[in-house]
């Protein structure tokens, strides 16, 4: 379920990107055709990279706790 908290929402988006990226990487590792290498790097790598960046952005954009 989508969270209404912006920080949690960003974590969910990052998590979903990473899940899809990891699943693509797992499938490509089992698939031995040369195209799997391209999909692994281009699509899987992209999703993992974007997922990690969204996670890091969610950390730096989180509002600081007062007091």
């Amino acid at each position, binding site marked *: 379920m989508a969270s209404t908290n912006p920080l949690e929402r960003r974590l969910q988006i990052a998590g979903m990107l*990473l899940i899809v990226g990891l699943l693509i*990487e797992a499938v490509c590792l089992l698939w031995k055709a040369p195209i799997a290498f391209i999909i*692994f790097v281009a699509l899987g790598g992209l999703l*993992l990279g974007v*997922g990690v960046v969204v996670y890091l952005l969610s950390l730096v954009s989180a509002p600081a706790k007062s007091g």
Partner: protein
Amino acid sequence: MPPVTTLIVSLALLTAALIGVVVARPSITTTRGGKILAFLLLFFLPIFCGAMGVSSKMAQSETTAFCLSCHTMADYGKSLYIDDPNHIPAAHFQNHRVPPQEACYTCHTDYAMFGTLKVKLSGLRHVYIYYLGTPPAPQNIKLYQPFNNRECLHCHLGARSFEEGVVHTADPATLPAIKANKLSCVSSGCHDVVHDIAHLNDAKFWKEAN
């Protein structure tokens, strides 16, 4: 499947499943332990799995089976089984002068700085042509550049058979010319029978005992 690949796939799937828990219950990241867990699951483990996966894929892309998985290369694969000691690739493959599991890569890599990167980029070009372009007929496939002696000398340099070979030492100028890549090993009329796929139909083949 290599055990390392199994391990990486298992770790990737486990990581994905655990990330699913964070996605379903993002509120668990509010605690200190949850934050550490989120860091491991959303940062460390995906990067670790990705890096290990790239390493595994790079190793897989160096295998003979990988190169021969494109049907354009099938005749080149057959040429490794030609029963003729003068056929350089076949003699190297059959006598394990190169690792048979990495026969193509061992000779066709570039033993220079950034050589592996250069070869991998060429490989990407091959994949592009194979899927999106028009692959040439097997007999029309040519090297991008003439075969460099450096690739042969990576193994043969210093070997007695090379350094003291009768033909190599007959003329004192021969060995320096070979080492300087001025006299080609494979195209100077010496070791020039390589992947002769035009005559595969007439060739006698070695049957590997299992």
